[in-house]
């Protein structure tokens, strides 16, 4: 190979011979995995109260959760929405387990990557994320907690486009009058999910607040304090204004919004 290139044929032969000697030093499959981990997002399938759903995650956490007819359909929708490809990769088993446990109702921290949302959307999603299982909150409350009182309708839009339903439990956000309202996967699904979590939607509908003369406090009907009120002391209210006019003060735990 060190012989001088004496004519065109030996030059090309020498180049070809050189080319044949060049190969990646490390295991090809390792290199391919590294490329895929850096250039694409991973995805997996998991059981949920909505049936089988697909989950896509980047290095920072879960970006998208959705039911889909097939993994192809999910991958296509993900590319349309996030401009990224998903590829099945090893190394997401731990995350898949966490997601699965969280969807089964366990208290597990699931890293979420909400970087593709606007600051307002993110604030709303962060507020909704901590609504506990077995409780619901009205849109107006979410808007206030997110620092944008009066933005109930905008909160509704964020809920409709929630990239990670169930993980950010938008089904626990209900209309200001206590009716369950709409849901990205159907109003009936919302009611079903809430029942699974131990909520009786018909009890909240029309009277989303409960007060007790024992403490003089008014709560959201599903607040953990409200659940402890004895049946004979329960004073249901249609809105918080009537409750405050009747002399009740808002609960400090669930912080119901006093309308302006």
């Amino acid at each position, binding site marked *: *190979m*060190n*012989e*001088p*290139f*004496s*004519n*065109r044929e030996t*030059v*090309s032969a*020498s*180049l*070809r011979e*050189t*080319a044949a*000697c*060049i*190969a*990646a*030093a*490390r295991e*090809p499959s390792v*290199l*391919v995995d*590294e*490329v*895929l981990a*850096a*250039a*694409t997002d991973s*995805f997996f399938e998991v059981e949920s109260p909505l049936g089988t759903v697909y989950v896509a995650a980047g290095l920072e956490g879960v970006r998208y959760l959705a039911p889909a007819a097939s*993994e*192809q*359909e*999910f*991958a*296509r*929708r*993900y*590319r349309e929405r*996030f*401009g*990224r*490809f*998903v*590829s*099945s990769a090893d190394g997401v088993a731990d995350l898949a387990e966490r997601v699965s446990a969280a969807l089964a109702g366990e208290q597990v921290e699931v890293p979420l990557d909400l970087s593709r949302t606007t600051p307002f959307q993110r604030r709303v999603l962060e507020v909704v994320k901590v609504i506990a299982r077995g409780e619901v909150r009205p849109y107006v409350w979410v808007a206030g907690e997110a620092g944008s009182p009066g933005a109930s309708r905008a909160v509704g839009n964020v809920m409709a486009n929630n990239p990670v339903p169930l993980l950010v439990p938008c089904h626990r956000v209900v209309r200001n009058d206590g009716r369950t309202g709409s849901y990205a996967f159907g109003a009936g699904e919302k009611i079903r999910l809430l029942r699974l979590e131990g909520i009786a939607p018909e009890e909240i509908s029309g009277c989303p607040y409960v007060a007790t003369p024992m403490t003089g406090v008014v709560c959201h009907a599903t607040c953990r304090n409200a659940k402890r009120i004895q049946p004979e002391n329960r004073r249901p209210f249609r809105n918080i204004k009537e409750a405050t006019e009747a002399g009740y003060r808002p609960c400090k735990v669930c912080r119901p919004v006093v309308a302006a």
Partner: protein
Amino acid sequence: MRTRTRQEWAAGFDPLAERLADGDPLAPRVLVERHYSELYRYAFSVLREERAAEDAVQDAFERAFSALGRYSEKRLRAMRLRPWMYRITLNVARNLLRRRREVPVEEVLVAGDVGDEDREGVMDVLGALGRLPERQKVAVTLRYMQDLPYAEISRVTGWPEGTAKTLVRRGVMRLRKMMVEDPGGSQR
């Protein structure tokens, strides 16, 4: 998935582009597996260093997927992926090389002094290749290191085939001269 005509195949239709557009989750892996070694060979030929070649190829794929992710389904379906991957890798490798020249680092060619005769020979040839003018180097590398036909070289570089042929011929002549004058080759 509809079947393709012979003309479409001749026009460079790539079934993998269709799979990517259809959301086949195995398609990204197939793309990387299909082109990794040839792109690595190109990057190594230019950069002459393993780690740098690996980084260049990874960077090229990251750019590729990020661009493809934003393409419309129609555009994605019509992609000629191979020359396009080459074009990105060419740019990435050229930029890395330029940056390396701006910030002088230790002479990379001494990587050959592990005493491995094969490796020394490879480094000699690549060293000579690296001393060609940019366009000749690209043309010769694509033609003989990557074994691309002229039509493909033309698609990668955007040069007419005739230009590619001329560049290869001149590059080879120059290499021959170089090696006759300085058969050891690598010391500049």
